[in-house]
């Protein structure tokens, strides 16, 4: 199929030593630390108490109402504590489980995916706590709600060092393809595309073989060039379909849905085997690791323990990163657990990290705009942020930035561009929240004022109505006084005139609005 290309990007050395070795399981750590917030949206709510015995796959925290996902015990054992623990983004509440070593499963009943209702399949994906395993950890059921024409299953990792999807596709190709077909059934997609990187020859062969043997409907397996950040959702959709997801929109707006291969795999395990999401493949890699490899890791495994499973640190280990070298977050220590979105643990050697250099002024070389996949002008955006010119920052489409870090990587002046954009986005989000709060308060004030005015108007009306009733009564009385004379008046009598005046007065009183009411 004809591929399009996206603007900018970088051809980075793949550096994937982990891809060469087979996927190995990580041994059971002495404790499993399960954060309640390891997905986008709201934190899960604990439904176990310390001391409770749990099996692998048991729900230990339920999804909150709204965008959220449940958390499951990743091995059998005893809940030791529900407490705050250090995580990648600062401290956060976690459920700590001490495994009993037996790793006993509690599985859900398997579903027949071809016969089950799409809604039932989607409910299973929700129950199993499945989120986007490419790294964003966005709860998958939310993305599966709309029906689309095309499902793209993303196996293009593109960030150097990360090789977990490659290992998964090579060794479990059949399950990945079944997962793709399953997701396609949920969203009613007629066309299914598995995108992999050109250099993943073994994975490609494995997928082709598995597809022949599976008896599934046709699935397109499309190799794409390894250009960072091709694995980014919007970039991949552009490459495969030639279309751009509209700014501020979602892929579904152009009839496309994109899921990571590991997400498809996890969905398949949940439906066909009743397994909740309790483990994932993590690439443990970099010059700071003795034996780089892909490791099947239980969620909640401390990173230090996981690195031990890959041979431990080398003497060169200089920086610990969760994720890849372009977007990953550096950690101050390794007592942080593996979460659903952690695709790689990268330990960089001293030669592989950016030297602490002073930030020089921008020389407007334009390299940042040349590599920007969102086609922004990072240098001008940075200047506008520094100047505090919010209007200009918006005009330069800060919100289109995908934070891929290409600009900061190529900047000869070593300006931390992407960091500045993240901070600016956060400041904007806070501003929006402040404005929403202020709007809410203003609305309440207006509602109160309106209510008081309405009440005042009603009071005036009531008085007017009483006055009218009184006038009518008087008119009726006058009419009754006039009535005893039986002969019909040839001409209009005095009483008729009086009655007419009284009626007119009453009408006027009823129609005439009080002055306060007019100001409304």
């Amino acid at each position: 199929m004809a591929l399009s290309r996206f603007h900018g990007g970088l051809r980075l050395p793949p550096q994937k030593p982990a891809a060469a070795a087979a996927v190995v399981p990580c041994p059971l750590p002495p404790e499993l630390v399960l954060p309640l917030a390891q997905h986008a949206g709201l934190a899960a709510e604990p439904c176990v108490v310390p001391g409770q015995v749990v099996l692998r796959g048991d729900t230990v925290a339920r999804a909150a109402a709204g965008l959220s996902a449940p958390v499951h015990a990743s091995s059998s054992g005893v809940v030791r504590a529900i407490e705050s623990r250090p995580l990648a983004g600062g401290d956060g509440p976690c459920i700590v489980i001490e495994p009993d070593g037996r790793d006993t499963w509690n599985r859900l009943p398997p579903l027949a995916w071809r016969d089950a209702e799409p809604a039932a399949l989607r409910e299973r994906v929700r129950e199993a706590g499945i989120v986007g395993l490419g790294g964003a950890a966005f709860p998958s059921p939310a993305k599966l709600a709309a029906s689309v024409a095309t499902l793209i299953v993303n196996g293009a990792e593109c960030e150097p060092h990360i090789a977990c999807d490659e290992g998964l596709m090579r060794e479990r190709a059949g399950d990945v393809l079944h997962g793709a077909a399953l997701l396609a059934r949920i969203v009613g997609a007629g066309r299914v595309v598995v995108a992999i990187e050109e250099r993943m020859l073994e994975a490609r062969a494995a997928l082709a073989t598995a597809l022949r043997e599976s008896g599934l409907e046709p699935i397109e397996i499309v190799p794409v060039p390894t250009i960072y950040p091709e694995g980014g959702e919007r970039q991949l959709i552009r490459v495969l379909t030639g279309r751009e997801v509209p700014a501020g929109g979602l892929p579904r707006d152009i009839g496309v849905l994109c899921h990571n291969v590991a997400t498809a795999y996890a969905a398949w395990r949940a439906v066909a085997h009743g397994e909740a999401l309790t483990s994932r493949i993590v690439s443990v890699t970099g010059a700071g690791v003795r034996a780089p490899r892909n490791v099947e890791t239980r969620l909640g495994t401390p990173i230090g323990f996981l690195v031990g499973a890959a041979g431990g640190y080398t003497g060169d280990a200089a920086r610990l990163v969760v994720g890849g070298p372009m977007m990953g977050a550096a950690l101050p220590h390794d007592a942080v657990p593996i979460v659903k979105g952690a695709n790689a643990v990268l330990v960089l050697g001293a030669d592989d990290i950016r030297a602490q250099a002073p930030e020089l002024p921008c020389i407007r070389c334009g390299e940042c705009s040349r590599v920007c996949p969102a086609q922004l002008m990072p240098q001008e955006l940075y200047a506008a942020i520094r100047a505090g010119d919010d209007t200009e920052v918006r005009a330069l489409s800060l919100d289109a930035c995908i934070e891929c870090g290409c600009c900061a990587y190529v900047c000869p002046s070593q300006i931390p561009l992407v960091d500045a954009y993240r901070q600016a986005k956060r400041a904007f989000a806070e501003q929006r929240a402040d404005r929403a709060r202020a709007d809410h308060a203003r609305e309440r004030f207006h509602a109160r004022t309106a209510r008081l005015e309405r009440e005042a108007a009603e009071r005036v009306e009531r008085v007017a109505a009483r006055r009218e009733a009184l006038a009518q009564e008087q008119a009726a009385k006058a009419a009754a006084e006039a009535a005893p004379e039986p002969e019909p008046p040839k001409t209009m009598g005095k009483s008729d005139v009086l009655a007419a005046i009284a009626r007119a007065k009453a009408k006027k009183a009823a129609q005439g609005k009080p002055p306060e009411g007019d100001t409304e």
Partner: protein
Amino acid sequence: MPRAQDAHERPALSPKQAWGRGIPIVKTFATAPAPHWPAPTSVRRVMLDVLIALVPGVALHVFFFGPAILVQIALATGFAVALEAAMLRARGAPLRPFLGDLSAPVTAVLFALCIPPLSPWWIALAGMTVAIALAKHAYGGLGRNLFNPAMAGYAIVLVAFPLDMTRWLAPAPLDVAPVAFLDALHAIFTGALPAPLAWDTVASATPLDIVRTLASKDLMIGEIRANPAFGDFGGKGWEWIANAYALGGFYLLWRRVIHWQVPVAVIGSVVALSVPFWLADADRHPFPLQHVFSGGLVLAAFFIATDPVTGCATPRGRLAFGAGVGVLTLVIRRWGAYPDGVAFAVLIMNCAAPLIDRYTRPRVFGHGRHA
């Protein structure tokens, strides 16, 4: 694709705190924001590439006009670095990163290549004072200057010392009386030629001067070109130096230090504008390539109009900027008071660059066309 969790949003539990609470830490690390890999380039590397790219041009300059140019380069660089240091000090900026960025030497070499090789030393001093102290640091230093420093310096000395600026030498095969290196040094450091040399015998009009003078006497282009100063396209010697500059320019393109839009637009606009005149009356108007290979046009196309700080940053803006430089150069050559207008063309376009950038912003992903 992984989305970085904002590790720097809230400080994670410090190792000491974690140990205090019995949380097992195997190893601690220093943190920094992504991206983590070393930077593939630096301002110093960019400027070094520009200097490397100038080597062939300088070499041919030495071949055709003698080694005096090297003295000019050394002088200008010395003044530039000293002035840079003084201005950094005055501004309270750190010396080391800014002196090490090599931007002052680039300005100095570009300036030195524009002035006659035997210019007295105060030309370099005056030019560098304007370039570094005024055009660069008075506007806020590296990255903030509105005008190309080398061109600002050159334009000022061109106006202030018009006589010195005409004292070019004849290129190698035509120099009937070559100036010895010691005599050249004497000229540079005293401002006067040692006896018995005299400027009248040593100096020679540049090809552009010749065209200008003879065209004003109503000579045909064919007759003008009969002058031995002319080579295949431009002036003898000059056209080879231009080729060497272009060679350096291709190196910069390959290194991605410059982008194709500016040189293509500068040279393309000169050719496009001169072709109709030449077709209409080849006797009165020079062959288009003569314009390209004369004066400082090729140097400007690859090294001066491509200055990122004072040029345009958008792809379409670079095309507009380059075309502006080309057209203004031709206009000044034809109707202006100076034989070569490149410096003034660049300075005029420097003024327009921010506005051009504003109106040539690229379409943002997800807006319009493909959406």
